[in-house]
């Protein structure tokens, strides 16, 4: 089973990814100083999702694994989002 070609990610990539993640962190922190009322949480969540996407793709190597892994991750996240939506269909519409 050791025949698959090994993908070695250069240090440089990780450095850039780290810089991107730090920048996003600083953005979310600064955004909270501006009062955007209802949008605040939405922006925070969107930025967090982008960060999570970057971590999954590069740090967790999803980009270089077989597509099976990506399919599984997408499926699990989809199921989780649906669970949230269905539960909220109770709480938000009471």
């Amino acid at each position, binding site marked *: 089973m050791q025949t698959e070609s090994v993908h070695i990610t250069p240090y440089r990539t990780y450095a850039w990814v780290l810089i991107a993640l730090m920048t996003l962190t600083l953005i979310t922190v600064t955004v909270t100083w501006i009062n955007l009322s209802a949008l605040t949480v939405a922006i925070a969540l969107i930025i967090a999702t982008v960060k999570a996407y970057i971590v999954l793709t590069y740090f967790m190597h999803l980009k270089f694994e077989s597509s099976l892994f990506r399919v599984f991750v997408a499926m699990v996240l989809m199921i989780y989002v649906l*669970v949230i939506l*269905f*539960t909220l*269909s*109770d709480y938000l*519409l*009471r």
Partner: protein
Amino acid sequence: MAAVFGAFVLGFSSILTGLNFIVTMHRMRAPGMTFFKMPLFPWALYATAWIQVLATPIVGITLLMIIAERWLRIGFFDPSLGGDPILYQHLFWIYSHPAVYIMILPAMGVITEIIPTFSQRRIFGYKAIAISSLAIALVGYFVWAHHMYTSGMSTTARWIFSLLTFLVAVPSAIKVFNWVSTMYKGSIQMAPPFLFAVGFIFLFMIGGMTGLSLGALATNIHVHDTAYVVAHFHYIVFGGVGFAFFAAVYYWYPKMFGRMYNFKMANWSFVFLFAGFNLLYFPQFVIGIMGMPRRYFDYLPQFTFGHQLSFFGALLLVIGIVIMLITLASKKGAKAPDNPWGGRTFEWQIPSPPPVENFEVMPELKENEGPYDYK
């Protein structure tokens, strides 16, 4: 609290089993066995394994929250601390409805093995059965709140969950249709495993149909928390899972222990179990609709006859189980051949009982062979 923690640890065993099955089926299939050449029992286990992996953590965190509530007064579910008891119901059923599918899916897989073997016919609609297992697992994940129609949920949520519950019936019905179609024009061998398998189909159909009437909002409100629900549940979990389990034991017993059992006795055990089961649970549908609530030991006079029937049914059922245990415990059976039923899956190609390491040479599935190549 110790019990809650015990349940939490038990969750780990369920998760790890599922994890093991998924990885095994992805990485360790026999040469030549593609996913769509896998027997349908493993297919059912594959769908089950995903439910175990994805549903158990939810009950895991719920149990941790209960421990926190009892121990640290972190009352997520305690109204006096601002918590929400209905939220507990949601979290509980997000796991506990799929848990029913953890039970029934392997049972369906067993039936899918037994029917073609004893009909000596290729399974009808192989892919439809395989995919329907996955569909049941997937849709079954999103129907949990049909247990909560009377809890004060929003109307929108109630009809959404009612709709989704109806959807689960589709893949289940596909399976039933395919089992029956497999028997069509087959050379049927009326051995005990087959008897239990057809018993399963009959009982599962009653259980499934009554499940639909429970999934419908209006009828559900009427029969909620009555004996009707008890009867439905037992038709699925005893008539379904239980009978499939008995079928599986009778089917693989020769392979497991290298010995046959007494067919006559086994058939009698079926007669008693089947008659006893129906006599025990069918009256509960009737008294349930009449208004007999569940979880009460006492009842009004008009329910007396129903309860008496149930009582005699329970007696017959116990007799059936005793006969079965005697049959299986007996050591007088003849030595079992390698393949007593003429099965085609790999386990019938090795000696009974299987030697250590099971296969001396790696079994292989040829290019144009399938798991159910009967004549």
